């Protein structure tokens, strides 16, 4: 049963900001006290990157209502361009945070550009056809990046496609090395950077949703024909949501890449797109806090708690995923569970499907 009355969004938004802030402070306290296991510490920044990716995909799937199966492609664009920018500026004397900002900004802008290139044709299609074309674009981006060579020498950046020989001058070095991706990355991203980007994304999404543009986007989701009849330009607002979403994914990619030693194009394949989609769907469409929680739990779970099951962990992960979908979506399964666990109140959860 959907809620009859829609409460003011602002309160829920502030709760989300609050939870993220408290989580950040708590994590920083644990890290600075040295109480964080090193295995877990290395997961914090990628976790932030996945949270951002999930938030951005929720804008496309939950708010705009279009299924995208190629979201990792935009992360890839952000990761490779952002990382290239950061590495090209390594000797420029720019402080670490300065390079980080440049990397994230470059990553988002180029991912946004990719968003425009993909969005213009894709958003003319509908439903599953749109989904398959986003998948196709994701694969194309992966192939292009796999065959991309970028190097730097005193004359500036040099690019090559398909052939590794890009004619680097004296003192030049390769940055992006085709199928081997980028290696020897200076890990300049940090939990604080991740936190700031998450907060920025939340502010952008919440403020967008609660403005005339956001309402136009949701109107298109609920009923395109009616939206056009009240004068809403479908292409413009669909593209707006899609491009903002792509830009955020680009930021997530840059953040992620700069927390790793190496990144390759294969890291951002169809499976990654699907992983992010799983976060979004399990967290609830349009529910940003849900995306954050789902991304956190589902990213950390296989790496920590499920470790004890060693070889079986991904199998258990799959079973958990299926069971979660069955429990949250099927009343029959819920009733069955309630019978099996008579002492426990049924795990009924009110679906919060709306932004």
């Amino acid at each position, binding site marked *: 049963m959907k809620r009859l009355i829609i409460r003011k969004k602002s309160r829920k938004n502030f709760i989300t900001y609050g939870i993220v802030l408290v989580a950040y402070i708590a994590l920083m306290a644990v890290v600075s006290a040295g109480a964080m296991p090193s295995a877990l510490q290395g997961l914090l920044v990628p976790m932030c990157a996945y949270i951002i990716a999930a938030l951005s995909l929720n804008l496309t799937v939950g708010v705009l209502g279009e299924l995208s199966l190629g979201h990792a492609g935009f992360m890839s664009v952000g990761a490779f361009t952002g990382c290239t920018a950061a590495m090209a500026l390594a000797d420029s004397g720019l402080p670490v945070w300065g390079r980080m900002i440049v990397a994230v900004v470059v990553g988002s802008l180029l991912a946004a550009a990719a968003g425009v290139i993909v969005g213009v*044709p894709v958003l003319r299609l*509908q439903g*599953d056809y749109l*989904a398959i074309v986003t998948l196709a674009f994701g694969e194309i981006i992966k192939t292009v990046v*796999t065959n991309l060579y970028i190097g730097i020498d005193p004359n500036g950046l040099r690019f090559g496609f*398909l052939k590794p020989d890009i004619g680097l001058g004296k003192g030049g070095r390769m940055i992006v090395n085709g199928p081997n991706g980028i290696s020897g990355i200076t890990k300049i991203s940090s939990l604080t950077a991740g936190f700031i980007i998450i907060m920025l994304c939340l502010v952008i999404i919440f403020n967008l949703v609660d403005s005339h543009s956001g309402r136009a986007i949701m109107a298109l989701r609920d009923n395109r*024909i009616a939206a056009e009849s009240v004068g809403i330009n479908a292409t413009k607002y669909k593209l707006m949501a899609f491009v903002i979403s792509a830009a955020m994914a680009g930021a997530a990619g840059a953040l992620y890449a700069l927390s790793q030693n190496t990144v390759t194009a294969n890291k951002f394949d169809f499976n990654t797109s699907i992983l992010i989609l799983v976060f979004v*769907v399990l967290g609830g469409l349009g529910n940003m806090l849900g995306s954050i929680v789902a991304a956190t739990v589902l990213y950390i779970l296989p790496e920590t708690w499920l470790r004890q099951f060693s070889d079986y962990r991904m199998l258990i*992960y799959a079973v958990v995923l*299926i069971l979660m979908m069955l429990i949250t979506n099927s009343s029959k399964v819920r009733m069955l569970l309630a019978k099996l666990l008579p002492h426990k109140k049924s795990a009924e959860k009110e679906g919060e499907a709306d932004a």
Partner: protein
Amino acid sequence: MSFINNLINGISLGSVYAIIALGYTMVYGIAKMLNFAHGDIIMVGAYICFFVCSGAGLSPILGILAAVLVCTVLGIVIEQLAYKPLRQVTSLAVLITAIGVSYFLQNAAQLLWTSNPRIFPAIFGNGGVQLGGDLTIPYKTLVTIGACVIIMVALILFTGKTRTGKAMRACSEDKDAAQLMGININSTISLTFAIGSALAAIAGVLLCAAYPKLIPTTGSMPGIKAFTAAVFGGIGSIPGAFLGGILLGVIEIFSSAYLSTELANAIVFLVLIVILLVKPTGLLGKKISEKV
């Protein structure tokens, strides 16, 4: 000569895609869901055939039969356990469940059969039909193309002429109305999954006869490509899936032969995008128009 060879190879690969795509399309047409676990059923089918032929040393025909049988049962079991409880909910929830099933099958295969590649036996022999000059068509290619054509014709006849086939089409148009007309929705959907999975098993065997390296993720990429092929031809349409599969195979082989091996996949997807922009519901898909 190499052109004709490439063409034959393309049609052969395309036939495998087409058989997978036919399964996708049947399931999509009736359950209105993208069954992402379909590709992994291909892998299971190939493994079963491998163990029966190479492991137990039985005849390939028994291997294929065993693969079809196991996959059919597997398909029905998956449908009953994972998809049936979700029949009334949004397609997105079912999609995620299908992804869960896909993870499950891949990881179960990894545990059972390890990730060491197995080399699939040449079950159709290594010979071929001599066509003059240096042009030979291997038996496996002939079998693949023949199987694909037979399957497509059989499916068209089945859905068009038989009672059960008509019930399937009725279900795909409107489940509620079909139910009111006395059609058993549950058994019809189960049957569709059974047919789709049996096709996947056959496709798995044919795929591995052509590309013998067998690992737990063998089915993933062909699964995605066949899904692309189904959309290419117009998802829900049986001739569309056939046409889409063949075209995809030919485009893939030609682009890797004449343009670039590295970019072959990208070119395949690029062609798909262009086709969908010109024909937004695929080559043979029904035009969707919303009544205002």
